[in-house]
């Protein structure tokens, strides 16, 4: 391929490089050190749509929401200093949840580096522990290659966030521009080779198991292996549970979908983790919220672990057979070796536990007899209106656990939440990004009254972009999850968890968003109907029973089989 070069400035090279990578949407916030790039964004606005958020944290969470629903790389821009540091929470969130992002930050001119110049921070050092890769560019000529490498690294293998810090003089200086996509980095092997012997060993264990149990995570979604997972589950007849981030990879209604594992997961999957004879982990990382006490986690079982990241093998749980590789590839390789089976008696044990959970937890949540509304019934009402086809974005806390437990999913990449980092304030901007990534789909976000106030300035972004996000604030006038722990483990000493809230309806209306408040059960169905029917953004506040708790629960440090129903 012949590479013709053109003489342009670094800032234009940034924009053209982004376009070369197919990025036609970016979220950001301008400032001094990134102004040359914004000047080029102005010139290229027909080709590259820039969304001005109201805070850099909003920009990066929006980029995350976009990346999570599309599988594409999200792009966030910020200026140097505070602009760059305001991205850090989102970068850390994307790192722990394996979300592909390219963040571009402006930096002071290279001759000022290290002089404590105005809005200078060492964002390379600050972001190093929470980026998959980062680089500072001080020469215009290096910009296209840095961006090409950034996109390649962000998207390939186990995805993650990368950051490119570009000094102002590099943005303003000229270069001979040509663009070549990056296809390899010699020190980086994105996907480890799959050992077919390990695949066969895993298949033997699966075929021999009497009580096999699959737990899948986001690796299935990131590897686009939903069909392969479904085929494996159906052929092997193995009951399958998901982690929070694995949710939506398998439809809620699938007969072998037995629910969620972990701290607020379902009763059966937690109990039976400690009864299965084979635990098959697919694209998940045995997070402490999943395993509870590791000393008593699935000790009776053999463990097969499918993962793309060799560093995850044996990190928390000792594996008997590790199958490395991309989940789509490994799952399709194992399928021919799997015997067609059903595990009816074993599956019935999950059903038995589900019956217990239905009676003790789920029915009272979905069909409450008490006066106060429950989060579960609100989420369920949304299910009824959307038929489980919506993209559901949740924030962090009690409502998040209710959302992942009660929201229905028919489609993959539809559950967007901050899983690993647990970032309050994530949902509203992430929902904006999700809506832009999937404009044809309904996007509903459930947020607590606490988290909502962490990023509710992004209502301004909705006002400006008309993103038709449906916002449901589940208001219990508490920081509910912390309050629940205070109730259970700190003798009800509700330290700084009581919220005196503003008039959320007025707040939404100030941003020209239709708003409605529900305080009585009779109003709920109609209000949800109206919200879903709306073509525009809609704000629904539902007053929730104040001191409701999320159950089941595996208390910190307890064994998963000691999961509590109350």
């Amino acid at each position, binding site marked *: 391929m012949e590479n013709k070069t053109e003489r342009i400035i670094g800032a234009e090279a940034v924009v053209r490089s982004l376009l070369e990578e197919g990025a036609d949407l970016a979220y950001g916030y301008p400032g001094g050190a990134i102004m040359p790039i914004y000047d080029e964004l102005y010139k290229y606005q027909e080709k590259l749509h820039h969304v001005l958020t109201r805070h850099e944290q909003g920009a990066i969470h929006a980029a995350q929401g976009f990346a999570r629903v599309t599988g594409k790389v999200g792009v966030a821009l910020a200026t140097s200093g505070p602009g760059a540091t305001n991205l850090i929470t989102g970068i850390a969130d994307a790192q722990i949840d394996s979300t592909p992002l390219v963040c571009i930050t402006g930096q002071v001119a290279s001759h000022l580096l290290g002089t404590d110049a105005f809005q200078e921070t060492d964002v390379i*050092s600050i972001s190093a522990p929470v980026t998959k890769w980062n680089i500072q560019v001080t020469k215009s000529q290096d910009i296209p290659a840095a961006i090409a490498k950034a996109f390649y690294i962000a998207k390939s293998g186990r995805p993650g966030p990368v950051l490119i810090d570009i000094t102002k003089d590099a943005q303003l200086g000229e270069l001979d521009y040509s663009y070549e996509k990056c296809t390899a980095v010699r020190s980086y092997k994105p996907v480890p080779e799959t050992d077919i012997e390990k695949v066969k060993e895993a298949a033997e264990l699966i075929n021999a198991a009497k009580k096999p149990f699959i737990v899948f995570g986001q690796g299935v979604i990131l590897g686009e292996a939903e069909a392969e997972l479904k085929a494996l589950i159906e052929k092997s007849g193995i009951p399958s549970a998901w982690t929070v981030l694995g949710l939506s990879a398998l439809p809620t209604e699938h007969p072998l979908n037995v629910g969620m594992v972990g701290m607020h997961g379902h009763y059966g999957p937690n109990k039976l983790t400690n009864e299965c004879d084979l635990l098959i982990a697919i694209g998940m990382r045995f997070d402490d919220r999943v395993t509870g006490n590791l000393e008593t986690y699935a000790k009776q079982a053999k463990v097969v672990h499918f993962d793309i990241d060799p560093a995850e093998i044996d990190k928390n749980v000792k594996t008997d057979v590790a199958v490395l590789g991309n989940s789509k590839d490994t799952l399709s390789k194992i399928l021919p070796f799997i015997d067609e089976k059903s595990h009816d008696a074993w599956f019935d044990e999950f059903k038995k536990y589900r019956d217990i959970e239905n009676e003790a937890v789920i029915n009272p949540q979905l069909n409450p007899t008490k006066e106060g509304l429950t989060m579960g019934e609100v989420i369920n009402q949304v299910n009824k209106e959307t038929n489980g086809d919506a993209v559901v974005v949740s924030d962090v806390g009690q409502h998040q656990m209710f959302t992942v437990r009660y929201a229905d999913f028919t489609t993959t990449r539809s559950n967007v939440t901050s899983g690993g980092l647990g970032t309050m304030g994530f949902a509203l901007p992430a929902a904006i990004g999700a809506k832009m990534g999937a404009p044809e789909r309904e996007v509903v976000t459930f947020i607590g009254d606490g988290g909502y106030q962490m990023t509710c300035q992004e209502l301004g972004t909705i006002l400006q972009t008309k993103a038709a996000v449906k916002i449901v604030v589940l208001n219990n006038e508490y920081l509910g999850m912390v309050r629940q722990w205070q109730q259970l483990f700190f003798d009800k000493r509700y330290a700084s968890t009581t919220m005196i809230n503003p008039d959320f309806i007025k707040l939404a209306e100030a941003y020209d968003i239709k708003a409605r408040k529900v305080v009585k059960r009779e109003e709920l169905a109609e209000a949800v109907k109206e919200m879903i029917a709306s073509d525009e953004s809609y704000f629904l506040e539902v007053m929730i029973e104040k001191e409701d708790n999320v159950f089941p629960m595996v208390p910190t440090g307890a064994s998963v089989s000691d999961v509590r129903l109350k």
Partner: protein
Amino acid sequence: MEKQLFTISVYTENNPGLLNRIATIFLKRHINIESLNVSQSEIENVHRFTIAARMTEVAVKKLVGQIEKQIEVIKAYYHTDDEIIFHETALYKIASNLLFDKREIQNIIKNSHASIVTVNPEFFVIEKTGFRKETQELYNQLAPYGIMQFVRTGRISVSKTEMKISEQLKNL
């Protein structure tokens, strides 16, 4: 499982910032680096970190996994002392008059197989390469006479078995 000293060899691209990333991996796990050496390696444009640190084998395995995960790390290995040939070098700066006034110093130098790097009217510098125990022993022997300055390098090592790094690079 007992903690023991491991020598971690990390082959990397030569990029600023990588030292920071590698150090952070130790910091995050509260593992103290006992010594650190960065130099060129046997492969052109490839750098080599040699890091000595004390931990369990389970911990070092995970740690090396995390180091290898860094984009610009080509390969990382860990070894116990019996799997490697390793040395450190120490420099001892001593007042010159002692060399002539105290005959014992001459004997100490001779017996320790240390070499004299430089001598001038004010001071002389001894260099000793060997195991930690040996450089420490020389230190202990010289200390009573007064050492003006002392410095010891990080451990450098080569493994007894092959590290298949060159082969891996050729494949790329």
